[in-house]
C-alpha cells in the first residue's frame, strides 16, 4: 500500500489538489453567485443547486478545455518545432515523427513494447497517435460542454436582463463564448512559451522538467 502510494505519488498528489481546488471553486463560486443574485434582487441558491448549475459547469469546462488544448498543442508542437537550449525540446535537426528504429515500432520493437507498437497498419497508426487522439477527444468534449453549459448560463442572464435568449448556434458565435475561450487560451499559450524559454536559462534541481543544474544553456533535450 505504502509502496503503491509512493509509486503513484505524483498522480495522487495532483488528483488531491484537483479535488481540493474544485471544492474551493464551488464554495467561493456559490458565495459570488448568491452575491450577484441578491444584487439583482433574485433568490439565492443552495450549494447543491449551484454545483449542478450551468454557471458552475461553464466555469469548470472552460478551464478544462483550455488545459487539454494546451497539452494537445504542446504534444504536437514538440514533434515538429524545436527550441535550442530547452529541455522541453528535441535537439535541433530532430524535428519530425522520427524513424521506426528511433520510435521502436514494428520490427524495431522491444520485447516489452506495447502490443500495438509491434504491429503494422491501422493499429500502429492509431497507437502512434493515441495520446493526441485521446487528448483531442477530451478537449473537444470539454469545449462542447463549455458551449452547452455556457449557453444555459448566458441565456439565464439574458432573461434576467430582459433580453431574448439565443440558440446554441448563436451562442458559439457570441462574444461571451469566445471571450471565455480566448481568455483561457492566452494564459495557457503564455505559460507554455514561458516554460520553454525559462527552462533554457533557469534550473530546478531534481526536476525532470529542468536541465541538470550544471548543464549549459545550449544543451537541448536534456532532462535533470
Amino acid at each position: 500500500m505504502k509502496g503503491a502510494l509512493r509509486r503513484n505519488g505524483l498522480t495522487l498528489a495532483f488528483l488531491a489538489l484537483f479535488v481540493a481546488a474544485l471544492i474551493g471553486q464551488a464554495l467561493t463560486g456559490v458565495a459570488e453567485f448568491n452575491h450577484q443574485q441578491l444584487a439583482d434582487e433574485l433568490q439565492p441558491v443552495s450549494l447543491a443547486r449551484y454545483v449542478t448549475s450551468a454557471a458552475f459547469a461553464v466555469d469548470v469546462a472552460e478551464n478544462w478545455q483550455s488545459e487539454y488544448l494546451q497539452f494537445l498543442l504542446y504534444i504536437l508542437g514538440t514533434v515538429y518545432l524545436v527550441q535550442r537550449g530547452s529541455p522541453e525540446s528535441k535537439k535541433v535537426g530532430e524535428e519530425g515523427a522520427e524513424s521506426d528504429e528511433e520510435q521502436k515500432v514494428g520490427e524495431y520493437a522491444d520485447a516489452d513494447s506495447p502490443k500495438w507498437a509491434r504491429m503494422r497498419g491501422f493499429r500502429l497508426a492509431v497507437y502512434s497517435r493515441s495520446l493526441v487522439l485521446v487528448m483531442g477527444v477530451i478537449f473537444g468534449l470539454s469545449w462542447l460542454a463549455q458551449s452547452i453549459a455556457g449557453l444555459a448560463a448566458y441565456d439565464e442572464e439574458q432573461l434576467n436582463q430582459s433580453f431574448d435568449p439565443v440558440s446554441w448556434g448563436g451562442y458559439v458565435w457570441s462574444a461571451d463564448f469566445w471571450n471565455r475561450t480566448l481568455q483561457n487560451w492566452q494564459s495557457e499559450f503564455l505559460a507554455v512559451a514561458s516554460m520553454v524559454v525559462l527552462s533554457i536559462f533557469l534550473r530546478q534541481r531534481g526536476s525532470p522538467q529542468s536541465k541538470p543544474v550544471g548543464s549549459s544553456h545550449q544543451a537541448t533535450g536534456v532532462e535533470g
Partner: protein
Amino acid sequence: MMPEPRPHRLRRRPTLWVAPALALVVLTGCGSVHTREDAAAAAATAFHKAVAAGDTGQACELLTESARSALADNGDCAAALADTDIPEAGSVERSAVWGKAAQVVLNGDTVFLTTFDGSWLVRAAGCEPDPPRPYDCAVEG
C-alpha cells in the same frame, strides 16, 4: 558526466476523464424543461388574466417583490398596476426557461419571470422589443 537524454514525453498533469460526465450533467439538468416552461407560461397567463379582469390585487401577488417595489414606492401595488398600461394578451406563442429565469411570449405581450421557492413570479411585463437594448417593459423589477 551529462546524463543520457530520456525519451520526450509529457508528464506534467494527469489525464482526466470527466468532461463527458460534465456534459451529461448539463444535459440531464434540462430533463424537466417542458414542465417548467408550462409552469412559467401558466404564471404569465394567470397574471394577464388577473389584469384583464381588473383584479390588480391578485396580479400583484404574481409579481416579484422587486417588481412590486418598482411599481409602487408607497406599497399600493394594486392601484399602481391599475394605472399602468399593460397590453392585453392572448394565447401563449412560446416559452423559454433557462435556470431560474423564463420568458413567455404571449399573443400581445412578452413576460419575463423568475422562480422564488419553486413558484414562477413575473419580474417584467408589458414588454416590447427595443434592440439592441433590453425589452422596454411597463413593469420591471
